[in-house]
């Protein structure tokens, strides 16, 4: 499986709200972050949840977001971040 993103790439989480078991939290959907780490390929938990085999494997990334990008009203510091584990099929180039 070819790797779509690399360390430092800017990515946008797709702003989609499909029903079912999803491991991408609502608060980061549609937001832009940066690939912090590439974390290998794993069975897709969104399929495993329903008893399927989770194949094909999905590449997992850690994406770093500035808190101020996620929350309009963030009261902390500009340099604060939240790192989220996100599967490749939820990401698009930004």
């Amino acid at each position, binding site marked *: 499986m070819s790797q779509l993103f690399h360390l430092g790439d800017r990515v946008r989480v797709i702003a989609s709200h499909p029903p079912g078991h999803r*491991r*991408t*939290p609502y*608060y980061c959907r549609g937001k832009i972050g940066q690939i912090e780490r590439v*974390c*290998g390929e*794993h069975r897709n*938990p969104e399929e495993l949840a329903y008893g399927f085999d989770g194949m094909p494997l999905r590449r*997992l990334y*850690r994406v770093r977001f500035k*808190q101020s990008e*996620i*929350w309009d009203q*963030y*009261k*902390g*510091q500009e*340099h*604060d*971040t*939240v*790192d*989220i*584990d*996100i*599967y490749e099929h939820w990401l698009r180039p930004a």
Partner: protein
Amino acid sequence: MVDEDKKDKTDHGHVHDHDDMDSTAHALEHIHDHDRQFQPDIEDEPVKRYELMVYAIRELLLEKGYVTQDEIRKARETLDSWQPSRGAQIVARAWVDPGFKQRLLADGNEAMSDFGVDAGGAKLTVLENTDEVQNVVVCTLCSCYPRAVLGLPPDWYRSKAYRARVVVEPREVLKEFGTDIPDEVTVRVHDSLADLRYLVIPKRPKGTDDWSEEELAAIVTRDSMVGVVNPQVS
């Protein structure tokens, strides 16, 4: 229908003759079951839907011979044996052995195998607190937690309040844990949602340079490895 005759005799439904008793006997006489507070038994709670399903599946697996009662018991015993002291030993080693720390940060599963830790399918990911960064771990969707090194998660970690608030206002939440993070330090929240499990290496406190690995492990608490507090030297 109320028996008027009984009702007249006493408010407890039976008769005392108070005049013949001293005060201790009087007090004892008044201890009735209905005055005591009993601690509820585990089984007193109504059975929830998912508990019922677990019972049903367990019975089926036993009945079909896929597992034995003893295997289930052993699995639970193993799970309960996982304690934060395992994580503390790993952190203490990382503090005293830079080579080990590098391995740990590069590949948690590989380095932790030195301590006999088998995380199953989970990818153990280690984060280091520094003068510049305070790492804090949460699972906003459920309660993903590095059980192989910290045991079962505390109630606060699973609470909705922690899961919802620590991503939105981490500095305020840490303050409530008694941890003040200076403005110049970056607060880095890690939302553990998928196949990764996070362990924080807290900052080694000053004044511990000549401490043994064992002494160091004793000050590494569970909460410090989630990142909500920093180890203290009293």
